[in-house]
């Protein structure tokens, strides 16, 4: 087969166009560098691709998808395009005894098209966990190193919230939050009774116009993608300014296969499959930023074996693929009779919670280490397939009585989702499967997963807390979680929370880490990995904001190196 070579050498080639790749593209092109940005999926045209404001009855399957297999959430027909738990022709494997799920987005902007827009800063203690409780490892950087970059990211993308002075949840640069919905009012009251913190949430959604983007119009559909770009996505907020510089070359449908090193041990090119022609092509650059998502980035490094790097690129420590973490997740909820009295009104709000529960037990000794925050939602949202399944099984019967019961209970359910810190363990990692390849001929990942005791205890605490809150709010607690099931206390399978990080971690020591504090590979100076893979720990903060802050920091460092002629 013919291997085409693009003669041009870019300053930087970025692999992946999501939170990390988009941020790097903006900062580097605005800093004067020429950038090639590779994306495995197609381009995105919001006004064509997004299903904003579509009703269920506008679609023949009412949102449930072909065969009715999709229910509410991350697999319905309304979701922004090309994000999925399974991609045809691109399998991944859970090792025997492990259950891991991997949500991937093949589209310009990656998973920032699909995420919950929750933008939380890590706290000072989150960077120094080993010093604090003896488990895991400290980051090679502190909160003070990252804080200026949290400022830059928040100032640029727009995040709403309030200053609260909570040690576990540092304040940021915030736009005003939206007013609470009825569901949030009732939970706030219940939490006050129990002395549990409940404060305005921090989401990357505009409540005021910002940088030419209009404020949110409160349709609650952020997950479908926002045609007005009032919420944050890399595709609509990071990549357009990079394109405006004239220094960005966006290459879509490009599935990176291998990083090619020269005799001096530096990366000189990325080999990728052009999906449209199924041909192998190369892009040459002076430096490379791998930002393909934590596990995809580890996969690319592990698949980049050479005489110089027999165990994969940047992997002399053997940590690539290791230290895989997700968030501890457990759900419960309840029906609140008080909400039956609420008259019909527009309850939509932003596409996410207006209030949340930050970790509040940081000032005492608990049965487990670290902490969790809680997201919650419910109420009189747009009805969807699956909404009345629980009621249908509970109430049974048929006829006008059933119909009336549905109307009575509509909007009275509130669900809670815990998001807790997992301590990395040796049983959780990904590696190259010894036999399977995807349709592009690229060896695929095999995942190993086992929760530790600390995570199970945390899930138990979530269930107990949600019961207390529901009961304090006068509701009926509902949970499928049981201690003796394969998922004790409802703890979600690995990967399900879509916060996987840690597979190419940074650290002070090349023997136990792959990257330095600027996300630069210890072994290969012109290689950076700036997505969630670089994380040392996985605090109870959704990782996206930190991914962008660390990428911005790494990009500033790279620009500085370029100025010094070190590229």
């Amino acid at each position, binding site marked *: 087969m013919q291997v085409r070579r693009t003669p041009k050498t870019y300053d930087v080639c970025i692999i992946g166009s999501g939170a990390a790749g988009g941020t790097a593209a903006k900062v580097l092109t605005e800093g004067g560098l020429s950038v090639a940005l590779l994306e495995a999926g197609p381009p995105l045209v919001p*006004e064509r691709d997004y299903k904003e404001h579509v009703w269920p*009855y*506008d679609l023949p399957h009412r949102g449930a998808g072909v065969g009715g297999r999709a229910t509410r959430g991350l697999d319905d027909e309304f979701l922004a395009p090309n994000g999925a738990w399974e991609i045809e022709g691109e399998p991944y494997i859970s090792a025997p005894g492990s259950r891991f799920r991997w949500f991937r987005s093949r589209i310009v902007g990656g998973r920032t098209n699909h995420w919950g827009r929750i933008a939380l800063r890590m706290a000072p203690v989150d960077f120094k966990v080993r010093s604090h409780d003896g488990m895991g490892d400290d980051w090679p950087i502190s909160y003070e190193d990252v804080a200026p970059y949290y400022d830059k990211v928040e100032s640029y993308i727009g995040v709403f919230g309030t200053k609260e002075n909570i040690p576990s949840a540092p304040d940021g640069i915030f736009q005003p939050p939206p*007013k609470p919905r009825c569901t949030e009012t009732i939970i706030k009251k219940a939490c006050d009774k129990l002395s549990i913190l409940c404060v305005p949430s921090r989401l990357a959604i505009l409540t005021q116009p910002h*940088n030419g983007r209009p404020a949110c119009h409160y349709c609650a559909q952020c997950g479908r993608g926002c045609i007005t770009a009032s919420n944050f996505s890399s595709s*609509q907020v990071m990549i357009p300014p990079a394109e405006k510089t004239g220094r960005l070359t966006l290459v879509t449908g490009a599935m990176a296969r291998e990083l090619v090193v020269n005799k001096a041990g530096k990366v000189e090119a990325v080999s990728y499959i052009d999906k449209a022609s199924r041909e192998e092509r190369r892009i040459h650059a002076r430096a490379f930023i791998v930002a393909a998502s934590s596990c995809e980035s580890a996969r690319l490094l592990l698949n980049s074996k050479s005489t110089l790097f027999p165990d994969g690129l940047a992997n002399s420590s053997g940590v690539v693929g290791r230290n895989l973490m997700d968030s501890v997740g457990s759900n419960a909820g309840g029906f609140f009779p008080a909400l039956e009295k609420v008259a*019909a009104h527009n309850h939509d709000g932003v596409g996410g919670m207006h209030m949340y529960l930050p970790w509040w037990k940081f000032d005492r000794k608990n049965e487990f280490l670290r902490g969790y925050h809680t997201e919650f939602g419910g109420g009189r949202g747009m009805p969807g397939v699956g909404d009345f*399944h629980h009621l249908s099984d509970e109430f049974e019967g048929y006829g006008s009585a059933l119909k009336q019961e549905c109307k009575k209970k509509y909007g009275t359910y509130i669900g809670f989702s815990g998001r807790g810190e997992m301590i990395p363990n040796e049983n959780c990692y990904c590696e190259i499967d010894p036999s399977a390849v995807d349709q592009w001929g690229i060896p695929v990942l095999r995942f190993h997963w086992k929760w530790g005791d600390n995570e199970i205890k945390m899930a138990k605490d979530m269930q107990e807390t949600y019961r207390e809150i529901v009961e304090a709010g006068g509701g009926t607690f509902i949970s499928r979680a049981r201690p003796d099931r394969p998922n004790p206390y409802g703890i979600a399978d690995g990967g399900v929370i879509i916060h996987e990080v840690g597979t190419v971690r940074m650290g002070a020591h090349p023997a136990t880490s792959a990257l330095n504090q600027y996300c630069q590979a210890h072994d290969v100076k012109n290689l950076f990995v700036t997505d969630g893979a670089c994380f040392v720990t996985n605090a109870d903060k959704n990782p996206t904001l930190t991914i962008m802050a660390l990428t911005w920091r790494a990009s500033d460092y790279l620009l500085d190196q370029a100025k010094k002629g070190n590229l």
Partner: protein
Amino acid sequence: MTISRRDILKSLTLTAVTGSVLQVIPLQAAEYAHRMVSAEKAAAEDQAYAPKFFSAHAYKTLQVLCQTIIPSDADAKGAIEAGAPEFIDLITSENVDYQVALGGGLMWLDNTCIDGYGKPYLDCTAAQQKEILDLIAYRRNAKLDPSLGQGIDFFALLRKFTADGYFTSEIGIEYLGYIGNTFVKDFPGCPPVPGL
């Protein structure tokens, strides 16, 4: 002269390309386009529906059962008017598991009616229909008569699908009183509620 949908979409694209690099389109134009798409779809809808999976007899039975589960009453129209049978037929035509559960379930119902009343469900009297539905509409009845198990499972699934089809329809959404999916300048928050 009325502006056509093509004009609107074309103007949106032009705004997106030549206007802001952030590809922002005017809210009013977006809302207008969405409404126009919905109106076109409604106008194009065919009156008579040809089932994709169910036989004519099975589909007729399905329709009657759906309407019994969520009937037309003084408050709002029922499952048939809301298009629930069409929705169920569509997803069943694409899902082998549902084909067995619903297709087989409808046959179980007819077989059971023939055994008990000497005729299929549709030909039974209203009292007979009520008698068999009152048996399969409640899980507790399987404890009294284990032979009802299959019918109870079938009816539980059909009840869920009927609720899905009904409450995702324009009729069902209006009945529930959902207000939203629109453009709001300032979100007003929770209205005053007694006891909240």
